[in-house]
């Protein structure tokens, strides 16, 4: 009996833990995005989310990069609001100290999107890792945050993913390549996912790259916020030589299962038809009674 009780308690505690881990919030949830004890899947520089985030802070770890400080950027004040109604923040960018490759980003309290950048400089060149993080804050759009040059060589999502518009497999999304603030044309962008997919894409004359997310997200074991299946991590990387220096920049984020994973259009169509059938008597003409 005691053994049975222990087993029941163990199962119960595991299920509670699983339920708590699976409970994401809106916006700042990262479906399957945590990187706890993850194996090395790329030698490119990464800023990966680590366990321990809430509505005002998120913890990250650096991979394949050795720096002491990371720069954080918040949306600026170029909001589409009348003068006097703008969300003001004094902290457009600030440094965060990393310890043992880990650091915590505190929300600026203004604007949803924050940008993180780690920069390692040597005599040979510059290596940059970058990512974005979504806090659920009112504030200006991240348009100026993305327009603002933050390093010599940049990969800029156009646009950033958002709560109801996350990156997904089988989806094509644009990124901008810039060098010293100007579009970088005809340059190869490397794509690597933690599922092992590798691909490359080339920027057009305007510096735009259309990235096609591969269909390699495995069936979900756990669930993120809103019942979304787990996601893969990916990194985009670009290299460029200029004035005798080598520049390497990476942007990492995550992409989820395709839009129709764990969804059924057949069931959807069936219930739509059922609703239509229920409404059918309303649109049928009733026969007038015939009088002899």
């Amino acid at each position, binding site marked *: 009996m005691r053994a049975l009780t222990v087993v029941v308690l163990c199962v119960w505690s595991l299920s509670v833990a699983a339920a708590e881990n699976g*409970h994401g*919030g*809106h916006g700042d949830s990262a479906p399957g995005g945590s990187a706890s004890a993850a194996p090395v899947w790329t030698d490119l520089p990464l800023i990966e989310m680590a366990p321990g985030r809430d*509505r005002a802070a998120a913890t990250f770890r650096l991979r394949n990069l050795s720096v002491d400080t990371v720069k954080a950027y918040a*949306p600026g004040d170029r*909001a*589409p609001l009348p003068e006097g109604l703008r969300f003001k923040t004094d902290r457009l960018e600030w440094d965060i100290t990393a310890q043992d490759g880990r650091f915590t980003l505190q929300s600026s309290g203004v*604007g*949803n*999107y924050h940008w993180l950048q780690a920069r390692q400089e040597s005599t040979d060149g510059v290596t940059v890792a970058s990512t974005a993080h979504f806090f*659920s804050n*009112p*504030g*200006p*759009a*991240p*348009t100026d945050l993305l327009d603002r040059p933050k390093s010599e060589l940049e990969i800029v999502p156009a*646009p*950033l993913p*958002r*709560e*109801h*518009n996350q990156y997904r497999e089988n989806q094509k999304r644009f990124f901008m390549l810039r060098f010293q603030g100007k579009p970088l044309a005809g340059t190869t962008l490397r794509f690597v996912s933690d599922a092992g997919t590798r691909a490359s894409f080339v920027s057009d004359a305007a510096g735009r790259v259309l990235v096609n997310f591969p269909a390699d997200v495995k069936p979900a074991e756990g*669930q993120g*916020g*809103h*019942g979304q*299946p787990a996601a893969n991590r990916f990194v985009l990387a670009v290299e460029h030589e200029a004035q005798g220096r080598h520049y390497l920049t990476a942007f990492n984020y995550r992409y989820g299962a395709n*839009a*129709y994973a*764990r*969804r*059924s*259009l057949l*069931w*959807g*169509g*069936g*219930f*739509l*038809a*059922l*609703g*239509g*059938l*229920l*409404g*059918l008597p*309303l*649109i*049928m*003409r*009733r026969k007038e009674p015939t009088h002899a």
Partner: protein
Amino acid sequence: MPEAAQSAVLSLSRLRLGVQLLMLALTVWGGALVGHYAAEKISNALPSLSCAYDQSNGAYCVLIPLQHQMHHRVGELIQQTGKFTLSLLLPLVFTVAAFYAFYFFIGKAFCGWICPLGTVQEGLYRLGRVLRRPFRHLSERAARRLRPLKWLVLLVLVLGLPLAAGLGVTPHATGDAFCQVCPSRLATTLLTGDTEQAAIRTGGILDFAFGALANTLFGFVLIASLAVRQPFCRICPLLAINATFQRLSPLRLVKQAHDRCEKCGICTKACPMDIPEIWHESGQKAFNEDCTLCGRCAEFCPDDAVIQIKFGPARLFGASRPYYKARIKQESPQGEPKIVRWLPPRTGGHG
């Protein structure tokens, strides 16, 4: 200008149709114009059903932040801290303030002139007239009996279940319970060519049940709209919220008592919400909670200045006999279009 042509140009309904189509474009595809990110939208607290699941819209419906805040700000914080303080309601106050900043100017016309789902239902009703489907009006009794439903939907799906989800009483999926069943989510996303929302989630029983309910409701609304005017509006929680604030907007419907009203009743026949009070009552009571300020009652009132739409002291539109005579030539109060005779009737022949 001939009288018929003049009335066609000046018709309030035609003006409203133009505004509705413009607003449909803005609320469904307007993101290309106003911006992609939530902060760039016209508003994140629009008093109309402009859906956030629509990837290219120009504004977000106020029900989204209301549910979100009840779930994540009020419910979760009460659960975490174990106490309720008024400061928990601060985000809700900001949302309502943003809502009211828009609502003050246009009031309940957000329902009758701007809501994309309202426009879709009206379009389907017009299609039903073209297809010669029967017209089903709601009796006075039925119209009155349906009214509490929109308040129930507001209390349960918009406020209650999201709060319960935040408190951990109900599953996470109930955190945006109204969005899960809202027909506008399906209508607006399908209008952008996105079928994802019409596909039902199969990962869990509750998700599946919400999807089944949403699709059944949407299917019913699509077909019922061919014969019944504005079927979903009658239970819409946003109409309930708009009704809460309707006396706090200068834009309103005004009716003066008139001797001939009791024998007439054309206003109720013209009303897409079948409101009997616009016929039987006058003064404040005539501006009923179900009114969407579409103005059809004023258009089809045959007596001068009995029904008016006013903004503060300014009269924006008022009933007039000449206007009524011209309007009734175009369509019946119930919206049946009159046959336009482009050629003079044939003379002679049989019968």
